[in-house]
Structures are given as structure tokens and as C-alpha cells.
């Protein structure tokens, strides 16, 4: 009896030693969390966005492990929209993605709470709770969401995706949590256009807030009063 107790004790101690380093590594990463003091957002200057340039789209696909396919079943987290005003013929080009609304309709309609908004304003899908009902896709005014129609292979470790689940732009949350900006913003800068600006909308001194204050910015479908985190200039 004593022998068995001793064995169990040793096994428990060894197990603890084996697990502890993992816990220690895992906990600090989790502990930080998203802060409600911050509201991440993006400003799109359409006057700097060039027709035909898809650097932001390519960067998004690469960063998040998307195929880049443009078939009706393919996921597109960000897309370029070319606009032509019907009366004047004026043309515009701009990127469209999840607008990270403060009042997101996708979160309202999601039956399980899989669609959720982080404390810092980033709207995400919990891949473990999404049942693939696509009600959020029906509800999104921006057609920003995609449904994974096929089995996935070779996923990126820090961007989990799932067949049968809905997904959309995460503002590259994995990069944001590392203190970096979204891949699309970086790519646009590398192209020398700097049409995209990422930052904290709550911080009056952030570059994004300053530029919005100076030149104003519009929300798409402002009539819906969703208080979008992505704003546009030049539309």
C-alpha cells in the first residue's frame, strides 16, 4: 500500500515538473490580454490608393495563409473595390474588409457567441464556437466575411482557420498582440503609398486620430450607425 502511495506521489511530482514549464511559458502570454483603453482602427486615404494595386490583398493572403483564390467559394479577407460615380464618372479605388464595428451586426446575430468583439475593438470569430450557420454573413453590411468551403492544409500556426467556419479580417491580431501593425498596412507602406494608417482611435495623439481630426473621415454605410473602426478619406 505504502509502495503504491509513494509511486503515485512520485508520479504526481514528476508530472508537475513536466507541465510546469509549459504553464510558465503559457501564462505570461495570456495574462496581458486586450485592453478596453485601446480601440484599434484604420484610416484609408483613398486618394493614395491606386487602381490595380493589390499589395494589401497579397500581404493579407500571405500573412494569414489564404490561398489567394478569387472563386465564389474562396475566402477573401480584404479585397480591392473599384468605384465609378454614376453621374460624374469619377473613379475611386479602395480596400474593403471587416470594418470592426463598435456595434457589430455579426456579433448581435451569432447564436453561440462565436462572433465577438475584443476589449480593444477587434471583431473576431472563436473557431471553437462557430457552428457554421452563416447568419453573420447574412447580417454583415460590408460582405466582409467568408465561409471556409473546403478542407484546409498547411495552416499558419498563429492563424488558426477551420473548414465549415466563418472567418474575416482580424486586423492581423497576431501581429497586433506582438506590437506590430496589420500586414496590409505594412505592405502599402512598402509600396510607397501609405494609403493605410493603423492605430489607436482612443488616443488623441495617435497618428490615425490626428489625421482624422485634420482632414475628417467617413464611415461606409454610416446610416447604420455601427461606429466602424475602419474609416475612409476621399469618398
Amino acid at each position, binding site marked *: 500500500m505504502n509502495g503504491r502511495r509513494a509511486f503515485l506521489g512520485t508520479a504526481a511530482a514528476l508530472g508537475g515538473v513536466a507541465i510546469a514549464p509549459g504553464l510558465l511559458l503559457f501564462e505570461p502570454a495570456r495574462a496581458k490580454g486586450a485592453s478596453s483603453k485601446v480601440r484599434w482602427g484604420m484610416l484609408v486615404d483613398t486618394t493614395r490608393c491606386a487602381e490595380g494595386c493589390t499589395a494589401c490583398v497579397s500581404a493579407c493572403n500571405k500573412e494569414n495563409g489564404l490561398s489567394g483564390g478569387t472563386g465564389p467559394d474562396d475566402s477573401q479577407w480584404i479585397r480591392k*473595390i473599384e*468605384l465609378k460615380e*454614376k453621374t460624374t464618372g469619377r473613379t475611386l479605388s479602395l480596400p474593403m474588409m471587416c470594418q470592426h464595428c463598435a456595434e457589430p*451586426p455579426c456579433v448581435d446575430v451569432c447564436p453561440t457567441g462565436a462572433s465577438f468583439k475584443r476589449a480593444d475593438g477587434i471583431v473576431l470569430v472563436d473557431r471553437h464556437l462557430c457552428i457554421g450557420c452563416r447568419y453573420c454573413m447574412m*447580417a454583415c453590411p460590408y*460582405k466582409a466575411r467568408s465561409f471556409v468551403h473546403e478542407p484546409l492544409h498547411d495552416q499558419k500556426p498563429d492563424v488558426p482557420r477551420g473548414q465549415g467556419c466563418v472567418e474575416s479580417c482580424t486586423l492581423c491580431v497576431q501581429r497586433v498582440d506582438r506590437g506590430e501593425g496589420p500586414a496590409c498596412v505594412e505592405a502599402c507602406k512598402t509600396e510607397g503609398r501609405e494609403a493605410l494608417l493603423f492605430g489607436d482611435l482612443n488616443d488623441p495623439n495617435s497618428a490615425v486620430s490626428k489625421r482624422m481630426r485634420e482632414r475628417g473621415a467617413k464611415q461606409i454605410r454610416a446610416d447604420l450607425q455601427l461606429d466602424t473602426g475602419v474609416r475612409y478619406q476621399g469618398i
Partner: protein
Amino acid sequence: MATIALREIEGRSRGWWGLFALAGLLVLGMLFAWHAMETRGHVITGMTNQVVWGLPHVIAVFLIVAASGALNVASAASAFDKRFYKPLAPLSAWLALVLLAGGLAVLGLDLGRSDRLVVAMTHFNFKSIFAWNMFLYSGFFAIVGAYLWTMLDRTVGRHATLAGRVAFVWRLVLTTGTGSIFGFLVAREAYASALLAPTFIVLSIAYGMAIYLLVLIGACAGAGRPLGRGVVERIGRLLGWFVLAGLYFVAVFHLTNLYLAKQAGVERFLLLDGGVYTSLFWVVQVLLGSVVPLVILWSPATRGRRGATVLAAALVVLGGLAQMYVTIIGAQAWPLDLFPGYEMRSSFYDGVIHPYAPSLPEAVLAAGGLAIALGGALVGVKFLRLLPVSLADEALAPGDGAH
């Protein structure tokens, strides 16, 4: 009026077994289709990132809505105390249950992650009408099940009126919830209207009663039970009123939208140049599904005739399927207008009409829902006392205060 006995049917005829085998085969097909969609993904369906809800949703929502309407005959008996309908009520309640089961099966098996149904039943976002519907649907099973029990078991028969009234209120709320799935979608031009909830309620009664009539006439014919022309005429006449009311609500819905300049585009698409959707609306939903049945059900030459009534009821069902197709798929085919006053184009099909053609797997999946309802109805009339031994006009004599 003397008490009318209810009896199980024999259920040994070729007709019964033939239909049961057909339902079984279709359910088997449904399971194969579901497995294929689970393993290969929704890429094998016609649904895309543009048209995200397809034929399975058309059939599922139709069945769910019809389930609520099928209860109408029972509601007339209990909630409105019409004695004429009392012997007809048990079949009505049973049909409501099996139709809902069929609809929910399709919805559940179409999910991208149908293996996570337990997640849907344990995690609720109460701001979502979908989450509310899970309670409304399970509550419907419980309440209508209890109501059926009070009708079939004399020891608890005294509770039938109360149970029937609760069921009546519940099904109104349930169809409000189903209509609101669409009514609450502010993003889409064709939806976002509080009118959708009452419209769905009225249409549900028409669809449910049409299915009820088809099953009643079919079961009486198959089991050799008398069914008086007066009985058929009376239910048919009532069905006519609900078909007419449905037309009224649909007309008001579209007229309201036509008045709003921002809705003109989608209304023009659905009503004038939307191809298959325009044809389905005018030819199948309005003409074949409403006007023709109305003429058949109310014309002195045809009203109460079994064959004519079967045709009228079948047309109402067909019109109902067309209505759901136009409502669910037509509305998605119309592109979202993100930039009013601009022409749009993109790699994600912005600014263009989205095509949709159902594939075989999703058609089989959808047909499985109809088969579950059919199989359930067949099993019900065979093993439960749902069908009166006689529905001859003399048995349900007029002058019973039932009018």
C-alpha cells in the same frame, strides 16, 4: 354532435409501404449528402460566399413555418373552441411536430460544423434571434407534444383547452421568431422590415393548412375512411382566406418597399427583371400558388371536390416553396449597395447579381427534410389514434355551433 372515434390506420397497404420506403430512401440519401458535405465541405453545394443560404434553407424554413401553420386546425378546435375541428385536431398537432422535425434536421445538417450542435445548445447569445429560436423550437415540441397527449389520453383530456391555447400563443411567437431571422437583417435591402414577422405568420397558416389538407385527404383515401365534401369544403374555404391574407401581406410588403427610393433597385430586380426570381414570384407564388388555388377553393363548381382541393393545396405548397426561394435566395442574389450612386466591381463579386444553382447533394439534403415529415406522418397515422374513423358530413353535422 356525437363523439367521433379516432383510430390508427392499418398501414399495411402497398401505398403506405411504398410511401414509407420512399421516405426512408430519401432520408438515407440525406445522410449520404450530409456526410459528403461534412468531409468535402460546402464546396460541393451551389452555396458560395455570395449566396450563403441556399435550397436547404428554403426547404427548412418552409417546413418550420408550415409546422406552425399545420397547428391551425387544432387551434381552431381549442383556442377558438370550434367543435367541428375537434376530431381533426390530433392529426394537426402531430403534423406540426413532424414538419418541424424535418425542417430542423435540414438546418442542423447543413451547418458548416453540424458536429457542434451541442455547442449551439450550450452557448447562447441572447441578442441573437437564432438563439431565441432554439428555445422556441424546443418549446414547441414540448408544448405541442403535451397538447397532443391531452387529446389522445382521456385521463388528461380536461387540460386540452389550456394546452391548446398555450400552443396557439407559442406558435405565433415561433413564427414571429422565424420571420424575424430575416426581418432583423438591416444590411440587406430586401429584408429589414418588421412586416416580415406577421407576413410569415399568415403565410405559415396557409402552407400548414394546405399540407394538412393533403395529408387528411391522402390518409382518408388510403385507409378507406369516409371524408365528406362538406368537411373538405369547409377547411378549403378557410385555406382560401389565409391564401388571400398572405397575398395582401406580400402586396403591402412590396408596395412599402417600392415607396422607398433606396429599395427601388432590389424591388425592380425581384418584381421585374430578376429572371428566375421574377418568374417564381409572379408565375408560381402569385398566380399558381395563390390566384389559381383561390379560384379552385372558392368556385362553386370545384369547392369541396377532393381532386380539385388536392390540386389547390399542392399549388399552395408549390407557391410557398417559390415564396421562400424568392425571399431567401433572391434577396441574396441582389448585391449589397455599399456605395450608393457608384458602380462597383471587385474580385469578391461586388456590384453584380450573384448566381446560384443548387447542386445534387444539397437538393438531396433538403428533400430529406420533406421525407422526415412524410415518414413521420405515415408512422403517426399508423401507430397513433390521429384519424377519425369517419369524417362523413353527417358525422361532423353542422348546427353544432362550430361556425
